């Protein structure tokens, strides 16, 4: 999945200019008058910087950070902590790479570790902890983390020990559609799985000039297959419940066990239904060769009506398309397959792991775990959501952000982290992608696909 959470970030790199950063740091250390001493005894910062007092005392230091987030999203990140850097004099040297998931392990194994890394997958965090290089967060970070729902702490933990505080969250259980087109055709947003199926059949029956109810694409370079794993996760969470979901993640329930096989059949009846897909693109097999970025384009031309994709898909719509409840595109929450279960909210997120315990690294860690920083980030630009309960919901300006933030902090829904992100890499970013791609591309049978994935589970 590595790409799915980071796909929205992959655009353009922004890296802090050394010169600018240094001059800021220099200006800052001059104004604060002091550049040494521990946080407790640091000289007071000027009034405008008062709120950064807890992080003072490390002026002139640099903290390196490595992540998969690329410009323009990384620009927003850097802007969000620019004031912190100016006031405290801690320069954060940021590097984004779209090979993050394979580069981080290489660099950690090679001894060239960054101070901080923003890791989007609990599974990868587990791999890093195994190397023994990840440092536990300072006490303040642990306290700050309590502002998140308790379940997030487990996602930032490995074998019961808390290592990485969540920074952001995203919402996956969304179906994108065109409110304008729905209105023109007289369709309403389905509230239950039965409604969803009825609507799909209706659209399929009415289908003029090749329009179909659903479109999809699972192509994503080396991560091809991940959107298909999301579809199964939605169906498992909404059809079998969170207990089965958790057991499935820990392999107590296997892919070849009845609940998962049954869920795969549901997915096959949905995204492999030749009457329903692949609107505006081709047949069922074309899902395997269409990139997830391109998959939604037919929604705007009326050739396809619905696309299941995460909140970060918002970045893929052309700038000319208006996003909103009455706009060109918007999203509704995917109803649960089993109406007796709570609404499933499958999500992803990013975790800040430290590879150094230097005081300035801990200062940055502490700051980035506060609701204060999250608020600062929300104000910079839309397209970013925190599940931190300390963030004022009214700050979100984007309708999709509002929708996601509401769902992610809603305590009545069944929130679960992306399953493949938590499974061992050999499955979650290996065999599951491959087998599911073969499932769509070559029409491999469901029992064979399930058996293939199970056999890759590390013994």
């Amino acid at each position, binding site marked *: 999945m590595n790409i799915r959470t980071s796909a929205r970030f992959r655009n353009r790199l922004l890296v802090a200019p050394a*010169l600018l950063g240094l001059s800021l740091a220099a200006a800052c250390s001059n104004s604060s008058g002091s550049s040494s001493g521990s946080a407790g005894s640091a000289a007071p910062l000027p009034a405008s910087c008062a709120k950064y007092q807890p992080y003072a005392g490390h002026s002139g230091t640099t903290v390196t950070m490595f992540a998969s987030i690329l410009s323009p999203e990384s620009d927003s990140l850097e802007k969000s902590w620019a004031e912190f850097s100016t006031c405290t004099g801690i320069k954060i040297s940021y590097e984004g790479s779209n090979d993050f*998931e*394979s580069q981080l*392990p*290489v660099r950690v194994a090679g001894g060239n570790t960054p101070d901080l890394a923003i890791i989007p997958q609990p599974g990868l965090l587990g*791999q890093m902890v*195994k190397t023994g290089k990840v440092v536990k967060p300072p006490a303040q970070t642990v306290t700050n983390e309590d502002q998140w729902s308790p379940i997030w702490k487990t996602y930032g933990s490995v074998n019961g020990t808390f290592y990485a505080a969540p920074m952001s969250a995203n919402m996956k259980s969304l179906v994108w559609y065109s409110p304008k087109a729905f209105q023109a055709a007289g369709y309403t947003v389905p509230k239950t799985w039965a409604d969803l199926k009825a609507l799909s059949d209706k659209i399929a029956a009415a289908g003029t*000039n*090749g329009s179909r109810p659903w479109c999809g694409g699972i192509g*994503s*370079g*080396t*991560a*091809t*297959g991940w959107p298909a794993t999301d579809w199964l996760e939605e169906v498992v969470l909404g059809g079998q419940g969170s207990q089965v979901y958790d057991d499935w993640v820990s392999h107590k329930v296997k892919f070849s066990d009845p609940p998962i096989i049954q869920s795969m059949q549901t997915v096959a009846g949905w995204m492999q239904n030749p009457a329903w897909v*692949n609107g*505006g*693109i*081709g*047949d069922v*097999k*074309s899902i*395997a*060769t269409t990139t997830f970025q391109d998959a939604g384009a037919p929604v705007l031309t009326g050739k396809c009506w619905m696309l299941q994709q995460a909140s970060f898909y918002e970045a893929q719509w052309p700038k000319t398309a208006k996003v909103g409840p009455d706009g060109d595109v918007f999203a509704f929450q995917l109803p649960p397959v089993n109406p007796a279960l709570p609404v499933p909210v499958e999500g992803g997120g990013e975790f800040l792991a430290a590879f150094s315990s230097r005081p300035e690294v801990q200062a940055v860690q502490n700051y980035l775990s506060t609701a204060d920083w999250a608020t600062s980030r929300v104000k910079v630009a839309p397209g970013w959501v925190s599940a931190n309960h300390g963030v004022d919901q009214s700050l979100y300006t984007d309708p999709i952000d509002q929708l996601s933030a509401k769902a992610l902090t809603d305590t009545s829904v069944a929130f679960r982290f992306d399953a493949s992100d938590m499974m061992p*890499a*050999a499955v979650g*970013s*290996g065999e599951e992608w*491959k087998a599911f*791609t*073969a499932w769509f*591309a*070559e029409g491999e049978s469901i029992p064979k696909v399930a058996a293939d994935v199970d056999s890759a589970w*590390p013994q």
Partner: protein
Amino acid sequence: MPVTSPLLADSAWNDAAIKLGNSFGAIAGFLGILLVVFFAAGRATGRLGRPLAIAVFLGPALLLLLVGLVAPLIRTIYLSFRSDDSSRFLGLKNYGWAFTTDTIHQVLLNTLLWLVVAPVAATGLGLVLALLVDRMRWQSLYKSLIFMPMAISLVGASIIWKFVYDTRDSSQAQIGLLSQAAIWLGWHNPPNWILSHPLNNFLLMVVMVWVQTGFAMVVLSAAIKAIPDEVTEAARLDGASGLRLFWYVTVPMIRTTLVVVLTTVMIVTLKAFDIVRTMTGGNFGTQVLANEMYSQSFVQFNVGRGSALAVILFIAVLPLVGYNIVQLRKERATR
């Protein structure tokens, strides 16, 4: 580069000057040290002279090879006998996995196919072109255009060709050239090329051939030009026709070059994972050994299996190396 100075801050130019200065400074320093060493070592005479010369000439290269290739090779062999995180000894289990798993069978088969088809096609085509192009007007234009793909990175080339093979539903406008060409030629419902196994393997090989043919052509063309006229003159006077002359005189005369070109392209082919990685991610039955190795080691974190595949790759190429060595030995013997 079409970069005009008003668009760039002075600091950017200064920065560029410093970086390039460092870089050329490093080259100057490197050559300077060599010159001094040469001068000093050149003074040594007598019994010390020869060993010293060998040490100076070979030492740096051997040291770098030892550190950069030999040590990692030994480490890889060691890791291939160990578990995914190298903590346990597994014996030959990783190799057993490689030879008993269905998907890996497919990978080995594909790799073999690549190894035979792509280099032979690139070299063969390069040879024909080398013979044909030299008589034509504007030959350097043709040569340069055919060589041009060599200047494009394999990732870039894969992106270009992904465009060529793109297929849309027959009700849509095609954006892939191959599908459009098929439609122009009257085939109204072309398949989804990249999904059509086993054709897709060959479509990916086309990319490699496209990149490597220019290399083969340029090198072989030079080799043909270097054949001394008098060597083949006798054969020609015996009445051999052009084609026979080509087969029995030209080809044997450039055989060493042919083998070298073939070997070079084969090794590039074996090691190249970018094409498969970029175009199919190893899906649809197109996976090759180099990409599977990369994926096992760096995506799925199974260093043991990745290392075992690397060793298999290494062993697969050894016969090729052996053949080259035999050829070189023969050539040495005749000299």
